[in-house]
């Protein structure tokens, strides 16, 4: 500033001297002129210099900014709630189970519509089911924005664009789409209108932090890494088809099936009927939302005898060669425990298992004692809430106080209600060498599974149980589940359902707990069917005729997909060519 002001001062003085000098003295005028020329020159020089300096500074700064590395900063744009993406859900082979598709929604700005009637008429050529009266009211209102139709297909969008109606527009939206429809509905779950997961793995994904991100407005329309599930879509489709065909065949009210990897605890497929279409969840809201596999508890019936037998063998108090007298019914506290397939004689342990003897099993439980029985079932996770990714998991029920009668009935599967999935998980522990592994719906390696596994029974007991399952599969009630080449071993369970506090003999809950190939089990399959009826209409359908053939169908169709190789011959030799 001082520099400029000095120039100003000089300038004013010069002006003064020129005006005064010019009038008074000629010589002074000459001198003044010369002086002025010199001054002008120097002024121009100064100005040129200052401009040069000014532009040098600007140029220098430009070069400096040009050389500088760009600072990496990011900003998060206000999230568009309608465009927030969810991760795709894939099956173990990368098949799509749930994905986001971009749709557009049609809106109108009524104040810009020229001819309402014409607009509606044109729109109805593309959207024939458009409500003319309602749309007319919307378009002739004074509002500035009206939704006309949500979630159009791209084809409809281009058709509407081609109509060239003024005053209407499109807003992009993301919509969750389940290509499989109801195939894996209970595993995948569904989302609500705000794209939030409300059931199944969709809800699990939200609970893993996605919901918090959304709440903070930090989700963008950028695609997220897909989430791979452990299920195999092909196996899942087979399960669902089999249970639906059996529901139709037996007029049952419900059914379910699960295939579980015994070494990793991965669920390869789990179906429960009735189910619903997650693309349109409101439609199935009546019955379909209940996942009977993990969220319904049932008295599992005779399948529980597997656990009782394993317990008796594991304590060492009973050996597989022992025998129990099953000739006379047990009478206790006004109840009489009888055998359905009563033999009326002394039965060995494999025979008790084969004939599904209630008396024999109750006596085996008696050897262990009430507390030991309760502890064992708790150890197998049958009395506590199962831990898995699915949010829909029911709490098993058990008697508040275990008395002798409870222990006796629970030994053959009455008095404790548990979920079928839990039973399958505990069943896997019986055959895989005694390791209880939490079920998972996400891929898990064997090493990871071993890290979370707990040893619940001795490997020798597990070996005995494999023998018993095999025995029952070849000689007992599991014969109907036998598939050539895949040795299926298992235990049936036919439980009377409780109706109005009493056991109803014409309403059964049938289950079959199976493992295959039983010599070295890879998979556990559990099926159940709720209130099946035989074609005779007498209502006494046994598990051996319902749940066991379901297992057979499932295994014969899915074993090859699951990578299990058939073995033929007594010694497991593979020669099947005969001359």
């Amino acid at each position, binding site marked *: 500033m001082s520099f400029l002001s000095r120039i100003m001062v000089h300038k004013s003085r010069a002006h003064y001297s020129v005006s005064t000098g010019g009038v008074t003295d000629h010589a002074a005028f000459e001198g003044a002129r010369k002086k002025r020329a010199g001054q002008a020159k120097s002024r121009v020089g100064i100005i040129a210099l200052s401009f040069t300096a000014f532009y040098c500074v600007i140029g220098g700064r430009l070069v400096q900014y040009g050389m500088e590395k760009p600072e990496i900063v990011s900003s998060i744009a206000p999230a568009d709630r309608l465009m927030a993406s969810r991760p795709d859900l894939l099956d173990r082979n990368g098949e799509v189970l749930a994905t986001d598709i971009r749709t557009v929604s049609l809106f109108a700005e009524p104040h810009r519509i020229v001819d309402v009637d014409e607009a509606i008429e044109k729109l109805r050529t593309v959207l024939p089911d458009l409500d003319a009266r309602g749309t007319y009211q919307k378009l002739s209102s004074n509002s500035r924005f009206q939704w006309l139709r949500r979630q159009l297909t791209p084809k409809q969008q281009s058709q509407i664009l081609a109509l060239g109606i003024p005053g209407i527009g499109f807003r992009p939206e993301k919509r969750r789409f389940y290509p*499989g429809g109801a195939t894996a509905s209970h595993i995948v779950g569904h989302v609500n209108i705000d794209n939030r997961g409300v059931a199944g793995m969709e809800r699990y994904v939200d609970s893993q932090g996605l919901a918090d991100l959304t709440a903070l407005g930090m989700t963008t329309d950028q695609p997220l890494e897909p989430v791979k599930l452990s299920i195999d879509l092909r196996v899942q489709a087979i399960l669902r088809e089999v249970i639906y065909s059996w529901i139709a065949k037996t007029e049952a009210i419900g059914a379910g099936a699960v295939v579980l990897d015994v070494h990793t605890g991965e669920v390869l497929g789990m179906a429960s009927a009735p189910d619903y279409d997650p693309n349109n969840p409101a439609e199935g809201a009546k019955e379909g939302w209940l996942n009977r596999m993990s969220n319904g508890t049932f008295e599992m019936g005779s399948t529980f005898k597997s656990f009782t037998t394993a317990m008796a063998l594991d304590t060492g108090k009973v050996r597989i060669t022992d025998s129990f007298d099953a000739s006379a019914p047990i009478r206790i506290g006004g109840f009489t425990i009888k055998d359905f397939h009563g033999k009326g004689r002394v039965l060995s342990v494999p025979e008790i298992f084969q004939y599904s003897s209630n008396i024999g099993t109750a006596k085996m439980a008696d050897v262990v004692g009430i507390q030991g029985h309760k502890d064992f079932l708790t150890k197998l996770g049958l009395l506590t809430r199962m831990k898995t990714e699915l949010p829909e998991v029911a709490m098993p029920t058990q008697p508040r106080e275990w008395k002798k009668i409870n222990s006796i009935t629970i030994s053959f599967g009455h008095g404790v209600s548990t979920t079928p999935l839990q039973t399958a998980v505990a069943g896997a522990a019986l055959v895989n060498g005694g390791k209880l592994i939490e079920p998972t719906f996400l891929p898990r390696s064997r090493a990871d599974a071993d890290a979370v596994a707990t040893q619940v029974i001795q490997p020798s007991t597990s070996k005995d149980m494999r023998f018993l399952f095999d025995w029952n599969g070849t000689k007992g009630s599991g014969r109907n589940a036998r598939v050539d080449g895949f040795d299926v071993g298992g235990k049936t369970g036919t439980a009377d359902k409780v109706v109005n506090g009493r056991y109803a003999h014409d309403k059964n809950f049938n289950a079959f707990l199976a493992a295959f190939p039983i010599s070295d089990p890879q998979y556990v399959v559990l099926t159940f069917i709720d209130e099946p009826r035989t074609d005779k209409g007498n209502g006494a359908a046994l598990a051996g005729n319902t749940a066991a053939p379901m297992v057979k169908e499932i295994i014969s169709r899915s074993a090859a997909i699951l990578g299990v190789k058939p073995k033929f011959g007594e010694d497991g030799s593979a020669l099947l060519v005969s001359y």
Partner: protein
Amino acid sequence: MLRTFDLVLVGVMISAAVVTYTIKHRADEKLAEVRKLETEIKLEKDTIDLLRADWALLTQPNRLHRLVTVYGDELKLVPTLSTQLAQPSELPMLRSQLPQPPEPEGMSVEDAIASATAGSNDTKLASRGATTGGLASKGIPVPQPRASVLGVDTTTTGSVNR
């Protein structure tokens, strides 16, 4: 001197302005191009998503099963039975490696059959049969498994890696 310098400066200024403008204009053009490409990429990505969903819909196992049922008359597809699955190691030998029964020299066909059914009683024929390796005592060829297959379990189903 100043005038020429001025002219030079004016020239430099104008050319600088022209150059700056061209650079800016080109940058704008590039930016517009980038935006256009980005829109195209986005459209393509959305289309890919849509097509993937469509593919998943069309290859749904339950849909394929339905189609198989509908076109059952033409396709004649039936489920694979477990007895129809075999490992490479389980295949019999090649036809060319099939052991040939000994030439019954100087014998009629009836004699050969008679000697074969007579079995081990006929020591002469039995000894001849023993020399030919892969023949049982009754002269019936016994299938030998094909030469050992490397990496026996070569069947993969894609579902579970074992």
